[in-house]
């Protein structure tokens, strides 16, 4: 009995930390952020900028339409791949539960709608307009 308990503890200990980010992934994320880091060059202002609305609820219908547009434009290739990946459980032997798959699918759809929908108005694949945090230094 004691041996079984010990065995269980050891096996659990060996798999613990699986939810930790792999060092290589962390390094990739850090490098990506560092490579694209740009600081604002425009002077600060207490005057709040006029921002486009970020997908308000009444725009849901427009967003649905924009999904088609986004697909046509090929903007959500990654989204499709990701959703397919999630749906197939590919690359994740551990346990993509049904709810996780659903959640991922929803996340994909929501962001594809948001980015696709906003793409026509204020989304910008090359980064934000000057003064919105993305200007080159």
């Amino acid at each position: 009995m004691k041996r079984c308990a010990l065995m269980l503890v050891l096996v659990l200990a060996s798999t613990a930390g699986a939810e930790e980010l792999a060092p290589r992934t962390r390094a990739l994320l850090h490098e990506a952020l560092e490579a694209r880091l740009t600081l604002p060059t425009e002077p600060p202002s207490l005057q709040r900028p006029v921002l486009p609305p970020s997908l308000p609820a009444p725009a849901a219908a427009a967003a649905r339409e924009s999904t088609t547009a986004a697909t046509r434009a090929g903007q959500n290739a990654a989204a499709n791949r990701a959703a397919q990946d999630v749906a197939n459980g590919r690359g994740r032997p551990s346990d993509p539960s049904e709810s996780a798959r659903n959640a991922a699918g929803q996340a994909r759809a929501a962001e594809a709608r948001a980015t696709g929908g906003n793409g026509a108005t204020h989304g910008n694949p090359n980064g934000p307009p000057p003064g919105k945090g993305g200007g080159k230094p």
Partner: protein
Amino acid sequence: MSRSSLVVLALLLAAEPAVPPSEPHLVAGAEAFRAEAYDKALVEFRVAEALGSTEASWYAAASLLKLGRPEDAVEAFVLAERSNRAATDALLEVYRGQACYAAGLLICADRWFESAGSRAGPRLVPQLKALRGAIRDALQPAQLAPAIDGLLTRGTELAGTRPALAFAIAEEAEALAARSPTRHRQAEATALTARLAAPPPRGRR
């Protein structure tokens, strides 16, 4: 070696740490971010988030900033902090400061630039210092009252629908009110901030 010890050894060897399901999406998100495909990066980070990665939320927020959606980014950073406070670092704090800066939340920006500046590398430190100096200059007492009014209006509007963003705005109003010579609407700003503060944590998301 006993037979049971061999079994344990075999199990240990077989039980490789499983790759979290979110990992491939974080990698794909990082690659897309690096390639300046921020819309793709955002989708990948959101999928990773939906698959259980609380760290992904921080990178989704950075992607929103790059997409020119600073208010959404501010909101996403607040939510990321609430779900995994420990996942941030100096670089993410610079992004967070930029989101605040672009959204016109200057005290918020100053706070994150200050925090990042204490840990950032030698290239960033003077730039962050210059930005903080410019923020100090922009905070003219005469302009505080109208700014507080605008923030409280916006924060109240958003309180019901986007409480995390409303919280960031209310916090800014509160901080500006504390600097205002007349403590303009300070009690109101404090009350709104308290109302929108995160509920006590109920364990990991």
